[in-house]
């Protein structure tokens, strides 16, 4: 409990730091909300006075009435003005803060280690950047401003009431807990049934998503009835919980109105009686031993107008408190993203002209401590040679890519490029030495030209088209609706193979001295497949290349073959050497490759 409290303070402190650049808005919000509350409450006092000067037939003091009404109108104008300015301040503050938080969170993601991205659900991280930030702004800022205005209103109302007539004010204060109690009761019930409802609703959505997503299988297996029955079962459960949740939350308004009605009636009756007593005792209000200044109909009108909106801020305050709790939870989630440690940026050694010699010495690596993956691995690669990585599916070929690209760092041992330890080279400079084409061809939702020029920001259109031609992309790009300016989206049909070709073009334009290629396994039609093979061959010329190989031709061409199984490298050598050895590779070759002919 204590710990959560200090955590909350911590979060609040951090949020305040984000607010700091916008001090002016905060100050504005404070000032305008005080002004707003003041003028709003002053209004009824003035018109109450005006009513008091309309004593009866032939006895209206017009000069006084005019003065009071003019004052009232001025109050209204100022109140409206400060409310508008208050709104502007709070909005600007909120939206700017939202932008800043999103930006920081996004920056953290672009800097985070690959391990973070690999080990966190994408949807969750996105929700933190997008939704949680909104919840913070709704809950904390809008909430804080509502809370402040609400509390101010309550306090100011009480003060004015006490000044006018403290007996009625006391009665109102005694009745106040009633409304607090009602608000608390409803909030609690609502919260409980809502969290239940959210759960069942989630189940329903999950079932719908799974079944409708797999509807084709449902049809094939004649399982429509089963699917519907299960849906109806969950739906029935949702009904039972749902209507109650709805009912409890719908109680707020009538209950508030009821509490209001009680306060209104009590104030009305007391006020009316005080008016009568004041008249009877000639302008003074005598209650037993107490003597107060006289109570008038105008004052009663002030009380009535306050009583009418008195409970509103109480409701708001209890709403705001739940909202704020959510906001704190969200802030914690957002800060988790922001606090994610960045990648190590490497040292400051530079290689003038990269040849492409690579040496791996005594490497040891595993994703989890305690697990054994790569142990005592050594490799010496001459510039310009081709290294094929082979092994059954799931043998950990990507681990090697991860290490070479420094997506993950070795636990022990070193990797040298042209004799320089790669940890001593600035990270970005080091990665720039490699061109990477992965199987899951990632392209951004931007234009084709933008994507090809991804690795080279200042590329001209001629250079982009030349790279596309070299990678056999030009013809299908020209067939797209806007050619090179087509924005890639789910509406644009680009096959898996074509995507890989675009990725090759992207690397060709960047022209790196070393390559990492991942051959695609399936779902590519024959013609595209041939083009990819040709493009790979072209791009590998004169570059040190690592290829995750699925094709025999690639393996036979390779200068070194690394054979991997269960995450570790178990054999290495040329094709001839490995066949000679009659080990794992020999068996793999015979089962996987030889049979296809």
């Amino acid at each position, binding site marked *: 409990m204590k710990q959560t409290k200090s955590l909350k303070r911590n979060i609040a402190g951090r949020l305040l730091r984000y607010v700091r650049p916008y001090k002016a808005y905060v100050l504005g919000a404070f000032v305008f909300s005080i002004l707003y509350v003041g003028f709003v409450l002053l209004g009824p006092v003035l*018109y109450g006075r*005006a*009513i008091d000067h309309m004593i009866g037939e032939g006895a209206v003091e017009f000069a006084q009435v005019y003065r009071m009404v003019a004052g*009232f109108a001025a109050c*209204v104008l100022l*109140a409206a003005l400060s*409310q*508008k300015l208050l*709104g502007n301040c709070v*909005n600007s503050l909120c939206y700017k803060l*939202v*932008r800043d938080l*999103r930006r920081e969170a996004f920056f953290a993601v*672009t800097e985070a280690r690959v391990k973070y991205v*690999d080990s966190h659900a994408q949807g969750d991280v*996105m929700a933190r950047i997008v939704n949680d930030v909104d919840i913070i702004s709704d809950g904390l800022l809008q909430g804080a401003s509502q809370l402040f205005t609400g509390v101010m209103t309550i306090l100011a109302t009480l003060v004015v009431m006490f000044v006018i007539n403290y007996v009625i004010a006391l009665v109102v204060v005694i009745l106040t807990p009633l409304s607090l109690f009602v608000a608390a009761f409803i909030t609690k019930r609502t919260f409980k049934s809502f969290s239940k409802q959210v759960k069942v609703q989630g189940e*329903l*959505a999950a079932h*719908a998503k*799974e079944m*409708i997503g797999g*509807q*084709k299988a*449902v049809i094939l297996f004649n399982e*429509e009835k089963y699917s*519907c029955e299960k*849906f109806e079962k969950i*739906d029935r459960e949702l*009904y039972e919980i749902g209507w109650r949740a709805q*009912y409890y939350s*719908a109680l707020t*308004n*009538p209950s508030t*109105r*009821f509490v209001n*009605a009680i306060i209104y*009636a009590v104030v*009305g*009756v007391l006020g*009316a*009686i005080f008016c*009568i007593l004041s008249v009877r005792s000639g302008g003074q209000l005598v209650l037993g031993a107490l003597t107060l200044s006289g109570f008038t*109909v105008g004052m*009663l*009108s002030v009380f*009535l107008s306050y009583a009418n909106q008195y409970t509103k801020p109480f409701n708001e305050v209890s709403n705001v408190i739940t909202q704020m709790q959510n906001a704190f939870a969200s802030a914690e989630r957002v800060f988790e993203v922001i606090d994610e440690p960045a990648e190590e940026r490497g040292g400051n050694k530079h290689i003038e002209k990269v040849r492409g010699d690579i040496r791996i010495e005594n490497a040891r690596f595993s994703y989890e401590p305690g697990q054994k993956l790569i142990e005592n691995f050594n490799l010496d690669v001459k510039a310009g040679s081709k290294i094929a990585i082979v092994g059954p599916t799931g043998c950990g070929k990507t681990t090697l890519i991860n290490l070479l690209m420094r997506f993950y760092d070795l636990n022990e041992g070193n990797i040298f490029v042209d004799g320089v330890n790669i940890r001593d080279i600035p990270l970005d400079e080091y*990665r720039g030495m490699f061109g*990477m084409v992965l199987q899951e061809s*990632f392209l951004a*939702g931007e234009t084709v030209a933008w994507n090809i020029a*991804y*690795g080279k920001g200042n590329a001209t259109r001629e250079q982009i088209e030349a790279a596309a031609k070299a990678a056999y992309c030009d013809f299908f790009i020209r067939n797209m609706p806007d050619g090179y300016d087509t924005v890639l989206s789910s509406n644009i049909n680009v*096959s898996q193979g074509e995507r890989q070709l675009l990725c090759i073009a992207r690397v060709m334009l960047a022209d790196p001295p070393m390559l990492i290629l991942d051959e695609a396994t*399936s*779902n590519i*039609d024959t013609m595209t497949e041939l083009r990819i093979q040709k493009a790979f061959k072209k791009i590998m010329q004169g570059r040190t290349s690592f290829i995750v190989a699925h*094709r*025999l031709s690639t393996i036979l061409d390779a200068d070194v073959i690394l054979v991997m199984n269960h995450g570790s490298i178990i054999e290495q050598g040329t094709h001839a050497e490995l066949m000679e050895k009659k080990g794992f590779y020999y068996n793999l070759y015979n089962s996987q*490759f030889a049979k*296809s002919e």
Partner: protein
Amino acid sequence: MRRYFKYLKEYKWRCIFGTLSKWFEAVLELLVPLVMARIIDVGVANEDTAYVLWGGAVMLAMGAVGFLCALYCQRSASIASQGFGTNVRNALFSHINTLSYRELDKIGSASLVTRTVNDVNQMQSGVAMIIRLVVRAPFIAAGSVILCLLIDWQIGLVVTAAAVIVALVLWMIMRRTVPYYSKNQKKLDRLSQIAGENLEGARVVRAFRSRNKERARFDAAAEDMLDNSLRIGKISAFLNPLTYAIVNFSVALILLWSGFKVNTGVLTNGEIIAVINYMMQILNAMIVISNLVSLFTKAHASMNRVSEVFDLQSSIDEGGNAQCDFSAPAVEMADVCFSYAEKGQNTLRNINLKIPAGATVGIIGGTGSGKSTLINLLPRLYDAGSGSVKVFGHDVREYPVRELRFLFGVVPQNASLFSGTVRSNLFWGNDKATDEQYEEALRVACAYDFVKEKGGLDQAVTEGGRNFSGGQRQRLTIARAVVAHPRILILDDSCSALDFATDAKVRANIAALKDVTTIIVSQRVSSIRGADIIFAMEDGAIAGCGTHEQLYADCSLYREICDSQARAAE
């Protein structure tokens, strides 16, 4: 809209009484200021304490009765609207289950899910709000205006004018902000898109050192969003101050005017207080109405989206009553053409083929050559546009459609498992089989070992089967098809994630099954080269058929495919 009344029918009385009770609460609420006015004008003026106390009692009673009415209404509204939502959801879901592939393709499964879940919810809250507020808010607004007119018609006119102006202001602000709100959603989607790409493409972003490029992209999008939000904020921040000012300036005007009226004795203090009270009621009611309008616009849009689904009718009929003739060829196609779009290009062109019962058949071709489309015609997932598709001697349309589908065991391209257990997934193929039979099917699919290792038939399967690897999922879907003891087993490129050795083993096990015609669709020559007949497809037509040797000799397409893959096997 009428078509949805039936879902509300069982709640008819709840709707009516709920609305009525809410209306009654509103009446009582409108009367309170009048009672207060009497207390002031009669009780205070005559110094009649008893009258005041009675008035107070009446107000309390009215409040209590109103509260009870409101409780009843909220309860009825909750039950009726939730019940309505439940009914619509169930009807919609079972309607979706009558649709065929063609209709599913048209709307898309993601959209169907949002319609079932979110849109129906939106309609449901529409119903709740109709019962709760549609009567109350306008009645309070109109009632307040009328009562003011009754108190004093001239002052009542000021009130009316104020009400009209407030309504206009609300309408104008809403109209101006709505387009910005939909823009806001788009801008938010853009932010999500960029964030998503940076997670999915984390490696690419790092490999190309594009951190700053991505940040600039995100910054621009965030800035754009900020601009739009601020614009919305600026406009909507006018709403409360403007309406507040309009109402209270009218109050000021009324006060001035009432000064004269009180002076001439046509108006009392109590009445002024009542009028001011009504003004506040009108303002609150108007704001409620403006919220209602936006809610109903949403609910209406949702209703249209849901109606779109209800309007779809399955393009596949129930079929006839034919009985299988197992001595006839398993499949015969004559001049079959097919197109996905109504007036689109034909995906299948003049297909003629014959598959004898018990044979093993391979279909090979590049992506988009029409392989999967061809086999989709067999269990009537789609109906052929022209030509005839016969299974075991009869046109597929002559069989009862469910019976027809029981003949087939299909292993679809994307291995889709459902959450539950291994057993519950196998249930789909056959819910009457014994554990031995399930295990046998798993053995055929080379899935027995890993299932046993993981925890047997009762091993949990998470949504989409994500706790199994791609290859394991494919083998489980094969087992699911095999356990149904189908007459015709279709493997639609369903071994792509298996290594060659396992692929071969599964095929050998399947070949050993009795009385089964097997159709293997693949891009790999190795998967089909042993088949009795191979059909090579290109651009929706059959380019050649025969055994591997015949085709390699005669069909240039087949040779090209073989050579491109055999390059790996010189």
